[in-house]
């Protein structure tokens, strides 16, 4: 059974729609700025230039919710017009959302009040769990037949996409809204800082001098359908989700194996599922966090799979910051934009190659290219490695 993407939407620090995102790529303008963040002082972070209030007004969201929920609701609402058919058909739809710390941005401040022996809003913790975010997305968008939250750290939304594909193939549901959402929090900023992998400058994926991540916020969701559902929905396929692979690196809780075993296996499995040779991949949207460890091991894994002929590749993390669980959802939507309009996304911040591998990412926006097959990588703590392949509709 073929799985198609019939709608895609994202909110990220470089825009809320394709035109804004494309302009950022064309002009190589990052969405990351240095800001005072909560308790922590100044950090380079990727923020969406809209307050909670503005987003709630724009998307008709009521009540006090975490920003993670607000971003998720907004992204799903962006594709809600393509869901209208669900009201008049008996097609079953599921929602699978990836998030890493759920409503932490809201509840951590209440928890700090609790720790400080101040009064705190106990009801706020209804927003805390990862599952509550997904629940709130449902409550604000559509009555899905099933909702699920996947939490595999930074590969969460890639695994949400994979789970959705498996649901359609198993015949559990006819369509699936899949992706992820995450917002900034003191918890995550200070967490990556404690690991000493938060760059105090703008992040530089795949550059020899890279020194860690910048965090960002965002949400990205796609609508997965089958040939059967599209006959009823009337939606047109944008791209096909042709391959996927998800494996465990089984090396370390937070670091990738030096030989990039998990990443290599994930990419190979995705190629095998798609029935493609490495030479047929036209572009790689890499995970590219800009940590020493990730970019080296991902480069090695790419060389393991592609040998000496490496497809054009980039990381968009220097545009958006690392949006954690949302990153794959956001980057998949970027990738779909690039396949539909035929452009290469550039990789900001790169100057010199990593000594061990010498790989050079795409440095400038390139128009007028044909991307038939695109590979998208997402790797997370716990050794979670997931690769997805999207193919152009013939």
């Amino acid at each position, binding site marked *: 059974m073929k799985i198609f993407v019939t709608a895609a939407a994202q909110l990220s620090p470089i825009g809320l729609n394709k035109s804004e995102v494309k302009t950022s790529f064309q002009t190589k303008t990052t969405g990351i700025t240095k800001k005072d963040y909560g308790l922590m002082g100044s950090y380079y972070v990727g923020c969406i230039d809209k307050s909670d209030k503005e987003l709630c007004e724009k998307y008709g969201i009521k009540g006090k919710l975490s920003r993670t929920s607000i971003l998720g609701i907004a992204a799903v609402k962006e594709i809600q017009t393509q869901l209208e058919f669900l009201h008049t058909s008996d097609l079953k739809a599921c929602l699978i959302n990836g998030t*890493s710390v759920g409503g932490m941005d809201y509840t*951590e401040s209440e928890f700090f009040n609790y720790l400080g022996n101040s009064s705190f809003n106990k009801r706020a913790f209804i927003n805390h769990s990862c*599952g509550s975010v997904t*629940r709130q997305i449902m409550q604000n968008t559509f009555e899905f037949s099933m909702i699920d939250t*996947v939490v595999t750290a930074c590969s969460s939304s890639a695994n949400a996409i994979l789970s959705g594909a498996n649901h359609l193939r198993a015949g559990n549901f006819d369509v699936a809204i899949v992706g992820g959402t995450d917002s900034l929090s003191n918890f995550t900023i200070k967490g990556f800082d404690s690991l*000493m992998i938060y760059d105090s400058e703008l992040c530089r994926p795949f550059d020899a001098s890279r020194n860690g991540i910048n965090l960002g916020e965002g949400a990205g969701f796609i609508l997965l359908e089958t040939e059967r559902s599209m006959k009823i929905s009337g939606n047109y396929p944008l791209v096909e989700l042709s391959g996927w692979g*998800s494996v465990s690196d089984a090396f370390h*809780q937070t670091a990738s194996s030096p030989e990039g075993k998990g990443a290599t296996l994930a990419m190979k499995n995705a190629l095998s599922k798609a029935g493609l040779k490495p030479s047929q991949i036209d572009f790689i949207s890499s995970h590219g966090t800009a940590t020493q460890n990730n970019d080296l091991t991902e480069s090695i894994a790419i060389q393991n799979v592609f040998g000496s002929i490496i497809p054009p590749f980039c990381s968009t993390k220097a545009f958006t910051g690392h949006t954690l669980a949302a990153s794959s959802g956001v980057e998949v939507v970027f990738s779909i934009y690039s396949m539909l309009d035929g452009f290469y996304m550039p990789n900001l911040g790169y100057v010199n190659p990593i000594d061990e591998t010498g790989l050079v990412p795409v440095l400038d926006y390139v128009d007028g290219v044909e991307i038939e097959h695109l590979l998208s990588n997402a790797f997370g703590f*716990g*050794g979670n490695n997931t690769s997805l392949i999207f193919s152009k509709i013939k």
Partner: protein
Amino acid sequence: MKLKIEIASTISAQRTFGSTSPFDNIYLIDSENCDTKTPIYKEFIPPLKIRRLSPLLRMSLTTAIDCLRRNQRDIGAIVIGTGLGCSRDTQAFLQLVKSTAGQLSPSAFIHSTHNTVSGQISLFFKNHGYNITHSQNNLSFELSVLDCINTMIAEDDINYALLGSTDEYIPFLDELKGIIIDDRYPLTEVSTTMIVGEAQGELGEVVIDGVYFDYSQDLIKDVLNKNDVYIDEFDIVLHSGVDHLIDSGENVINYLDFCGINMSASAFACHYAFDLLKKGRGTSAVIVNNLCPESTGIVVLSKNV
């Protein structure tokens, strides 16, 4: 596809671990007697590693090791549910953030992400298979069951999966009792892990026939009927406090009375049902989990006779 349960292991407020009859002597728990009955962890996990693991990680890794020691299968997938994830490490890191200036120790942050459980299991066994964590409040276990079914349909080379669900207690949760957490039962913790594979139709095997979800405000009876699940047809009914809808009897069991409240309580119930069916207390069982409002999960099991 139906899932055969090969073996199960549970650490809980009952003496369920390490027994061939884990549920034979269970008793009603109360706030005075709801602490976790932990095994001697060093019999399962190297002592140096134990020190670095929270109770949640110790419990879940130990039940996984116990399953694989007793039933050495080639595990192609590790699928774990957790409602609240690594709460103790999350709280510990938040306390550091609040109280410490300068560079923080990353230990608690490293172990705070929900998928630390599935990651630690894969790390321990050097398992390179599919590895995923589902976190949908009270329905995390049920969604993990469904993922195992999907994965075995999708991947021909995956014949067995490690399926589990786990949640831990932290004192802060007491603050939320009566506000957003039911205060009729003690707050507890549980880790249940199982080895599951595709049902083969063999005599005596216990299988999960199906799993269903509902998010409406409908009465539980109507929710069940909507999914063609009729309580009267089951020999064993395990539920999370909906007994007013069901005729009482020794095989109608409110599992929260024995397990207490945690987001993985239905995984405890699934092991309980597996044990009862294995022992011949009946040939069919249903677990009705509506621990959280407007979030019902239904798991249907049977024994092949």
